[in-house]
């Protein structure tokens, strides 16, 4: 077992709690440089010196995504602009994006996290790393780029696009590790298959930025010949890498010296115990440019109760999806990842799907278009109908919802290089 920072990664018990309390106190003080937090802390009657233990975090109010949007563009910066050396933004699908600032120390902290993650899964300066994610304002590109360089890996900043060229690079440069979104990984696998290469040098896949199921892990590992690891993070927490799977691949270690994580009931705000599923709330402990207090991520997960054999600290369960991705259909919560999971269990259909949500006579109707698997086509209408019914039944089982399923031709649905957009919600049109 290799560690990038053994001391911090294995920190436990009182030593960990003392460090977390000290850093939390510092963060509350740093947040005092932001007008929003000055007011919030005053109203809550909390001063930095009131933070004596980690549990004192519960004295603090929550911060929501809408609060951050209200501060657009620089309202949440806690340092003078001359100390801000980089800016990223969230994708901003709803309203204004959130602008995230980084000091030089923030960038160092972030690449330290990535270096820990890559080392944890057995990568080293011997590896060639292709970073096939969007560079630019999206945090996945530069974040992993600098972290991989810190480890000393040979970094191929391929970004997205030109998938044939991506595949040539993997083969020609002897790429051993690939980072991209799971949906782009699937596309790369398809194109590689058609190009007739098995990508023999590739051994490690790092997939993140959108939820992906264990089923998809098996498919990607099979098609790409990699061991696949899940990465979690968000711009508000620097970016990807805040939590990452270790070789056990049973939950993600959230870096406890840099983030204080809580799981709460999203309705009541009550703090939940390990094993109870709820919303992840994060207080970064070392963020200088943009400290956050009890930030509600909207992501649903839980702390895993059992200690990890690898010796590192607290783990969170893999994420089912962001609450932003969550659809409420006739009062039932549905994550696109659940649909994906179901479709992958039916061999007659392919990997690509699109969900349409409509409101018909005041009732939500969900229609799922799924591509047929070319090799499963027998030529018989009955077999197609049987497949269609199987998918409907499997979805009913998993979601407790009746859905309409349309079988469509292979390769007819759009492919995505970044985050896949699998849901078209048309209910707003008639509301």
């Amino acid at each position, binding site marked *: 077992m290799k560690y990038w920072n053994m001391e911090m990664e294995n920190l436990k018990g009182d030593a960990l709690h003392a460090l977390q309390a000290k850093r939390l106190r510092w963060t509350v003080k740093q947040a005092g440089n932001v007008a929003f937090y000055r007011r919030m802390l005053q109203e809550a009657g909390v001063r930095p010196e009131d933070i004596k233990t980690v549990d004192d975090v519960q004295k603090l109010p929550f911060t929501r995504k809408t609060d951050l949007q209200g501060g657009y563009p620089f309202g949440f910066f806690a340092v003078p602009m001359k100390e801000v050396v980089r800016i990223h933004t969230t994708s901003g699908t709803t309203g204004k994006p959130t602008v995230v600032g980084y000091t030089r120390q923030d960038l160092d902290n972030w690449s330290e996290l990535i270096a820990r993650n890559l080392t944890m899964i057995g990568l080293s300066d011997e590896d060639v790393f292709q970073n096939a994610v969007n560079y630019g304002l999206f945090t996945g590109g530069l974040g992993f780029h600098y972290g991989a360089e810190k480890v000393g890996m040979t970094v191929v900043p391929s970004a997205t696009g030109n998938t044939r060229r991506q595949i040539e690079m993997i083969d020609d440069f002897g790429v051993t590790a690939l980072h991209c979104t799971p949906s782009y990984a699937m596309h790369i696998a398809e194109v590689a298959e058609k190009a007739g290469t098995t990508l023999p040098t590739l051994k490690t896949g790092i997939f993140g930025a959108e939820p992906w199921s264990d089923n998809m892990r098996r498919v990607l590992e099979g098609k790409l010949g990699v061991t696949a690891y899940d990465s979690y993070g968000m711009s508000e927490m620097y970016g990807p890498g805040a939590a990452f799977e270790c070789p056990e691949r049973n939950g993600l270690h959230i870096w406890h010296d840099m983030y204080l994580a809580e799981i709460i009931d999203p309705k009541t705000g009550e703090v939940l115990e390990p094993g109870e599923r709820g919303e992840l709330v994060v207080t970064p402990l070392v963020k200088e440019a943009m400290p956050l207090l009890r930030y509600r991520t909207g992501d649903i997960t839980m702390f895993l109760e059992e200690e990890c054999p690898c010796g590192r600290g607290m783990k969170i369960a893999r994420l089912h999806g962001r609450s932003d991705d969550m659809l409420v259909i006739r009062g039932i919560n549905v994550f696109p990842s659940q649909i994906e999971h179901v479709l992958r269990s039916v061999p007659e259909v392919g990997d690509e799907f699109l969900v349409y949500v409509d409101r018909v006579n005041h009732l939500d109707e969900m229609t799922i278009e799924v591509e*047929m698997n070319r090799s499963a086509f027998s*030529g*018989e*209408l009955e077999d*197609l*109908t049987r497949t*269609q019914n199987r998918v409907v039944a499997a979805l009913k089982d998993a979601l407790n919802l009746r859905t309409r399923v349309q*079988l*469509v031709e*292979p390769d007819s649905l759009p492919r995505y290089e970044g985050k896949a957009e699998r849901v078209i919600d048309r209910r707003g049109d008639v509301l």
Partner: protein
Amino acid sequence: MDTTQYTIKQISVFSENKPGRLAAIAGALQAEKINILAFSIAEANGFGVVRALVDKPEAAYEKLNAMGFMVSFTDVIAVKMRDVPGGLFEMASILSEAEINIEYSYAYSGREAAVLILRVDRVDAAVEQILARGGTLLSADEFS
């Protein structure tokens, strides 16, 4: 007995129920100078299967497959109908007595007489039974 000469390759094409799919299939075949001798469309909920007898099945398969269509071959037989009352009943009886199921059928106007294209669950048995009972089957050569 060797039934292969009476086994005719029908092409079956998956098609979404949306405008222009049938035209795309027909147009592609025409461009390749492939003649469609008979066809039928079976529809279900949102999609269908276009079934066609063509003079060059291999070429049709290749062309449609290359265009991204899902295509497969289906073995069918072609029975020449006797132009007498009860011809269809007679044919159906022969097959049902032998416990052969007809999955679907469609007509083809042959040169001399009406021809019934049959998709059955046991092709070899159907060929043997029909010939043994004095029926007439068209051979695959007659379609090329």
